[in-house]
């Protein structure tokens, strides 16, 4: 045995040059792609904002005019102010709703709460544009069901709710994103060790003192981080401002960018200047949030051991909390879906009544299924979603391996570059990619490729997060033992790392498929007649006033996504079992 081993070793020893070509080829390609996707659009956007538009007659020239135009006018300050008002309002309302629900769910004995936890995630599946449209059908002053019903009830012409207002915008956006606040705050409540509060009680502190001296200081990083995430998300929001704000002249940065591009002649320089401002806002938000979460680790409220917090016995008040849950679920899932469902069975949009009931028809479904663009949009959406998810997950697996498992100098920089697109609001990313490939004549403009580039860029940070979580759980010795067994890097990556990464890979893949299918704010600047996707088709139906067809498509879309999520959970559970 020994003799055989020694002679083999001698042979190996003679073969000095280590074969690492494949390894470095793959790593190099992934790093190059990440850097290209992360940096180039941003650089181009900045560059563009300092130049005059290029035309056949004259070349682009350096100018500060875009910023002068943007910031000298009072309009911009109004724009800034309304953006802040909208984002602050929406994030605070979403936070209040989400925190209340999270507290009820984590710290009280409200009945059926585990069921509510599952149900409250459903709204995140509903695409923003459909949620907004549903609320227009509910809260529009002219056709809104709520107004019409109340008017009939009180026999007046008064308008009770008007969704076409800043308040309306805040309401719809906050409602749609309250589940996000709910999930973030639930995690915060869950990770807070109740022993910290209990030991304060044991030290003789009163309830008020406990809250003031222990609970609040402990919860503060989580609260602030959640608020920042919600604020950044709200300021990036496109669907609500575009559908609810633009018709009544309330502009925020995202809708202003859209309008600047769609004006004739399009003012790309101005749009870029707006985009840079928006980017500064989101970057600041993301920066503070990441600072906060690294600092938050100091507070080590997460000890890793499972603790069962003492639940507050609400007594009869628990009927109130159940009622709140029910009302919330009604507002956020039942009502919007019901109104879409109702209008999808009408020939023309009309208010529910016995008379309208007799006019139920499948006509909208027939129309939409016969729509010339439908099959192409579905195909484009699926093709894009699957390729984006696959590409993102594989590339970020390599990136994340470099960041987590190697000691290469500058690897933290790579992590930051791959996370950079996180600060891009969808519409800003769409704009920068549009400009970039208008100037770069490599023939991707107006094709599906440009959408793929946009999607991959936009969702790369998510892929990285999913992969990193899984990668951190893979003990480095699992890979080292493969090396010691004689496996090359490629073999070890394929046979050890990827299978062990599977839970994160699969979960991230599914998440990216879903968000890609719903994507609107980047696509809206990048699509061409041949490359329409589902969300764009919905947008066009809305612009054409085809509400009933839109509803029919929306109902099928939501059901389709719902099935996808269910499948995802089943698949996820199957892959989850073998998690190391």
């Amino acid at each position, binding site marked *: 045995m*020994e003799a055989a*081993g*020694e002679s083999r070793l*001698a042979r*190996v*020893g003679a073969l000095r040059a280590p074969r*690492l070509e494949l390894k470095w080829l793959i790593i190099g390609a992934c790093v190059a792609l990440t850097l290209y996707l992360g940096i180039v659009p941003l650089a181009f956007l900045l560059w563009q904002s300092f130049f005059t538009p290029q035309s056949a007659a004259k070349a682009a020239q350096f100018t500060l005019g875009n910023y002068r135009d943007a910031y000298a006018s009072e309009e911009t300050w109004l724009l800034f102010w309304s953006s802040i008002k909208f984002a602050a309002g929406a994030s605070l309302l979403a936070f209040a709703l989400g925190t209340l629900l999270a507290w009820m769910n984590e710290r009280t004995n409200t009945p059926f709460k585990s069921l509510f936890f599952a149900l409250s995630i459903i709204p995140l599946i509903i695409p923003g544009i459909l949620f907004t449209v549903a609320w227009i059908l509910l809260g529009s002053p002219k056709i809104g069901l709520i107004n019409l019903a109340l008017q009939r009830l009180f026999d007046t012409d008064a308008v009770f709710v008007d969704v076409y207002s800043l308040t309306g915008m805040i309401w719809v956006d906050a409602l749609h994103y309250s589940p996000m606040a709910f999930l973030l705050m639930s995690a915060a409540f869950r990770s807070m060790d109740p022993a910290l509060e209990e030991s304060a009680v044991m030290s003789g502190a009163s309830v008020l003192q406990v809250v003031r001296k222990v609970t609040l200081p402990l919860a503060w990083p989580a609260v602030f981080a959640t608020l920042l995430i919600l604020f950044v998300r709200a300021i990036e929001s496109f669907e609500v401002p575009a559908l609810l704000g633009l018709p009544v002249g309330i502009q925020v940065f995202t809708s202003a960018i859209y309008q600047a591009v769609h004006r004739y002649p399009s003012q790309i320089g101005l749009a870029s200047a707006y985009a840079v401002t928006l980017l500064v806002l989101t970057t600041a938000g993301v920066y503070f949030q990441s600072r906060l979460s690294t600092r938050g680790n100091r507070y080590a409220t997460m000890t890793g051991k499972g603790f069962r917090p003492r639940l507050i016995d609400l007594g009869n008040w628990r009927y109130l909390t159940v009622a709140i849950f029910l009302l919330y679920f009604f507002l956020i899932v039942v009502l919007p879906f019901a109104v879409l469902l109702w209008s999808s069975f009408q020939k023309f949009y009309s208010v529910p009544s016995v008379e309208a009931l007799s006019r139920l028809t499948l006509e909208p479904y027939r129309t939409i299924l016969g729509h010339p663009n439908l099959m192409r949009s579905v195909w484009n959406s699926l093709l894009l979603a699957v390729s984006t998810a696959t590409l993102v997950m594989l590339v970020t697996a390599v990136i994340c391996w470099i960041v987590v498992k190697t000691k290469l100098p500058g690897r933290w920089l790579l992590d930051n570059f791959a996370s950079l697109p996180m600060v891009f609001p969808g519409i800003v990313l769409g704009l920068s990619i549009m400009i970039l490939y208008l100037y770069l004549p490599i023939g991707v403009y107006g094709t599906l490729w440009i959408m793929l580039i946009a999607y991959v860029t936009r969702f790369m940070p998510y892929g990285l997060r999913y992969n990193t979580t899984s990668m951190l759980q893979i003990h480095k010795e699992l890979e080292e033992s493969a*090396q*010691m067994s004689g*496996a090359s890097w490629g073999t070890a990556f394929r046979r050890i790392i990827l299978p062990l990464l599977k839970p994160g890979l699969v979960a991230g893949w599914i998440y990216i498929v879903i968000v890609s299918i719903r994507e609107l704010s980047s696509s809206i600047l990048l699509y061409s007649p041949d490359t329409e996707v589902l969300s764009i088709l919905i947008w066009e139906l809305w612009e054409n006033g085809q509400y009933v067809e839109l509803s029919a498509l929306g109902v099928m879309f939501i059901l389709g996504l719902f099935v996808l999520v269910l499948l995802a959970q089943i698949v996820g559970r199957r892959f989850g079992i073998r998690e190391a």
Partner: protein
Amino acid sequence: MLSVRGLSTEYTDEHGSAVRAAQDVSFEVPAGKLFTLLGPSGCGKTTTLRSIAGLEKPREGEISVGGALIYSSKNGVFIPPSRRGLGMVFQSYAIWPHMTVFENAAFPLQVSRSKPTRKEIEARVLRVLKAVALEEMAGREATKLSGGQQQRLALARALVMEPPLLLLDEPLSNLDAKLRERMRFELKRLQRELGITTVYVTHDQSEALALSHSIAVMNRGRIQQTGAPREIYERPANQFVADFIGTTNFLRATVDAADGVPGFHRVASEVGELVVRAGDALEPGAKVVISVRPEDIRLSESRPQDGRNVLEGTVDTKVFLGESVDFRVKVKDRVLQSRAHPSLGTRVGHPIYLSLDAEKCVALKETPE
């Protein structure tokens, strides 16, 4: 078989400054022997092992296995770990959770360049699984194994390629005390039966004493002493080795003169005049530290006949351990620890005589702190 010469390693900490781990480490392991690197955590023993494995790239030195150079800073040789063909058992066992027991053990053969046939792989895997008594478990998921079984599987995986050298990185540290003791014998039996050259890393001195042909005690990146287990225990080279291996009493002393018997000296210690043994001749007046182990201090209630190295003290505390009693005896200002048979029942506060075996009183140079 294995030869390590002048090995030095360095790693960068989170602040970016270079930290030295192993420094000028050299040793030879003859074929078929089990060699142990023993030391406290951070002494550089694991880094040394990982450098042999190729998982770490040393800064300086030379490593060769069976005459073939696998690392040399001078000649710029660095064979990557996957080409070294060595077997290794990791501290965490590193059993791949997504594979069965069989698949785990078969992996090294499947990826090897010699491309054995499926039949050949099966035969070799079953043979090695049999050697570690896991052949019944071949079809099981690896995660369903107990700690001891996982450890044996890791060993099987390391042995299946029939490597010239087996590297073991604290393989027993994750097992509970009972199992650890059993696996210790198991490991020793297997190593002796297969005659495979082995490098073993541990911080557990009793493990090292029980298993090894030869031990290198390391501290702060340097080898302090290399020798057979008994040699290390009975003749520690310095204060660190004496302290790290087993329990001992240290007494400060000044050399008076050489004793009549060669190798022995008379010293004036904190507790009185003693005759001690020293490796090298000592100059009169030199400051030394005397190490004497608890089991080498005999206790008696009456003064022993032989008057050499006899001290008088009072019992300070005692701890009953079942098979023995630990006495702490106060002599002048010092408290000496002694292990005695449980039949000795001297009460606390009562006088007692200590007699120190001169053969076992070792004079050492003080390790500067």
